[in-house]
């Protein structure tokens, strides 16, 4: 689960990690109060940061929500020094508009929250990340002197500038490892000492929240030699987040596709894509393979949809409804491998669902496994616009025919 920068920082702060101070606002009316509070905490300079679930905000472009061709302003994060008036003007301009960055795609994301933060003077930007290293099933801390740049870029161009330490699951982070990182980051004096505390607390935060990623980019050395998280990205493990109601409450539904939310309510695993052939499959691996099959058949997958193990009439109907809300869909491929679930039951479900809904596009139904023969009969005799297929090959050909015919 992704969360916003301001939420990530609030979590880190709780674990004693030094972060850039700030206040999140959702309307411009809250702006003055936020500034007032930051001033009381000693801030003299200010930054306005758009809160969306995507990186590259600083270099992004803000477009008018109601006229998507109109550029409101360039940059989704701006530093204003002590010029509060200018900061407020900027905040009022971008709030409610659409920020497009290299990570959002051209649809961009609506800026619904701003993080009004203290502006810091700093000497250097560094990089720090904690995540799972899948190759040896241990967490790894990665640090680099090249802060403020995407770590993937550093890894590709100057991999020697990335220092890694692997954490023993039964021991946790060791002091010598913290020192190794500090040395690798070329820290000295107070910054060195401050970092040793910073990294131990940060790792504690990572572990204690069941995070799947903590990325501080940049982490800065301030002019007075403190280590602070200027930005913070925290992803929480989807399989664990419900153990923490307080973090689970940070889920921002506005950041998610409405269709995907609708699907998750019916226990369907749906991801919207840009293609023209919808698909409904049981099992994630087979669902991915079915998307690939659609592409090979000359179409483009419109979605990923895993209906899970049951594939009852109800789930099939919900699946249809969600796929059809996507107006680009020109055909649908249902691919169910009936193992424990019987194909004739699935077929009955498909027929029932098709009767309840008026499906305007051709539907290719491929049922394989237990009672596949009976299932085909049910589909063929339904009198509905259902094209039955037996093998995957057969299904692919019928999808090709369905899209070329429409």
């Amino acid at each position, binding site marked *: 689960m992704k969360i916003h920068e301001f939420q990530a920082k609030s979590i880190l702060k709780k674990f004693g990690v030094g972060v850039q101070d700030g206040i999140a606002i959702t309307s411009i009316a809250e702006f003055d109060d936020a500034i007032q509070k930051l001033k009381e905490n000693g801030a003299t300079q200010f930054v306005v940061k758009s809160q969306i679930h995507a990186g590259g905000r600083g270099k992004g472009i803000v477009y008018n929500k109601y006229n998507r061709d109109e550029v409101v302003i360039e940059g989704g994060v701006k530093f204003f020094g002590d010029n509060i008036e200018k900061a407020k003007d900027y905040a009022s301009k971008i709030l409610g508009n659409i920020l497009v960055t290299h*990570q959002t795609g051209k649809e961009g994301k609506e800026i619904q929250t701003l993080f009004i933060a203290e502006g810091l003077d700093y000497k250097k930007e560094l990089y720090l990340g904690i995540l*799972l290293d*899948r*190759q040896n*099933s*241990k*967490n790894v801390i990665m640090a680099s002197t090249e802060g403020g740049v995407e*770590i*993937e870029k550093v*890894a590709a161009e100057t991999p020697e500038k990335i220092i890694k330490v692997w954490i*023993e*699951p*039964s021991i946790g982070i060791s002091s010598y490892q913290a020192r190794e990182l500090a040395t690798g980051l070329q820290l000295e004096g107070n910054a060195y000492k401050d970092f040793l505390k910073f990294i131990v607390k940060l790792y504690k935060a990572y*572990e204690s929240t*069941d995070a*799947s990623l903590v990325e501080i980019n940049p982490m800065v050395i301030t002019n007075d030699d403190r280590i602070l998280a200027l930005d913070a990205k925290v992803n929480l*493990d*989807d*399989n*664990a987040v419900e*153990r923490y109601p307080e973090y689970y409450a940070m889920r921002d539904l506005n950041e998610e596709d409405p269709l995907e939310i609708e699907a998750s309510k019916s226990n369907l*695993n749906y*991801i919207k*894509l840009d293609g023209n052939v919808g698909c409904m*499959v*049981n*099992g*994630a*691996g*087979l*669902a*991915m*393979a*079915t*998307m*690939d*099959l*659609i*592409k*090979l058949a000359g179409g*483009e*997958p419109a979605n*990923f949809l*895993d209906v899970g193990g049951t594939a009852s009439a109800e789930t099939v109907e919900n699946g249809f409804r969600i796929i059809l809300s996507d107006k680009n869909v020109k055909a649908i491929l249902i691919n169910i*491998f*009936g*193992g*424990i679930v019987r194909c004739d039951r699935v077929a009955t479900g498909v027929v029932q669902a098709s009767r309840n809904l008026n499906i305007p596009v051709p539907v290719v139904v491929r049922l*394989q*496994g*237990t009672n596949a023969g009976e299932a085909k009969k049910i589909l063929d005799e339904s009198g509905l616009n259902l094209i039955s297929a037996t*093998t*995957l*090959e057969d*299904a*692919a050909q019928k999808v090709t025919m369905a899209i070329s015919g429409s």
Partner: protein
Amino acid sequence: MSILVNKKSRVVVQGITGSEGTFHTTQMIEYGTNIVAGVTPGKGGTVFQEKIPIFNSVREAVEKTKANVSVIFVPAPFVADAIIEATDAGVNLIVCITEGVPTKDMIKVYDYVQSKNKNGHTVRFIGPNCPGIISPGECKIGIMPGFIHKKGKVGVISRSGTLTYEAVDQLTKLGIGQSTCIGIGGDPVIGTRFLDAIKLFNEDKNTEAILMMGEIGGNAEEEAAYFVKKFVKKPVIGFIAGKTAPPGRRMGHAGAIISGGKGTAAEKIETLTKCGIAVADSPANIGITVKTALEKFKKKQAAKKSPKKKAIKKVIKKQVKKTKSAAKKKRK
């Protein structure tokens, strides 16, 4: 005829009284699996379906019934504990079906099991988030439909459930049987990886070819491919799902995600192909790709063993000997 599990496997079911546990235990018994015990804390002393004793702990089950394989159906929050319990009880194989286990739990469990193995135990776990393992005609430990399988000589390894059934179904319909099929699971931290399974199949005399089905995310497929290139003489066939998957999105499985541009299907297919693995281009062609690879391999073997070649080799050998001994004489 198989790896890891066979007719002799004595299975204990952890979470036997839950709905999943009950349903699949019944299915496993029907397939012929030797289920010897069940475990549900608090229900020790009762009997499952009038024949299988239920115990409060795995240790008790192992002591009383000599179970050597455990299969886990307990809910995700209790999986870590269940695996550790089974490990301590001394079973050799733990098959964990449950989906949705937190990664943090699995990192600890993986480390624990590794450390046990370093201290003289031999225990392996498969999963979590997997369909289990089956040696067709001998025993099925998991949730796969047994009837699609056929006893034979192709080893199957896969990160997915229904996609594996699809591939196995294609194989069976082409008359190609399987030695053992392992679903290794779709999570980022799993007990048995492609590499581990490939090593086992490589050593198994009765496995003639290996089919590995991977997907986007991580680089476990590549890790296995490099091993194949170096050490595996049997034909290896591959398939990678997710050519059309967008980056940064989790495709159902917790481990199926392209992150930072890494773990794409294209990347994996390239590496597999480079390492001599025959990669099926479409999920519809997995069976036929295995068939072709097997035929090609058998032809090669036959050519190697053909009498004509053997005769030529003999002649060459003789000549080499002659010249060598002649050279020796000269030196003398």
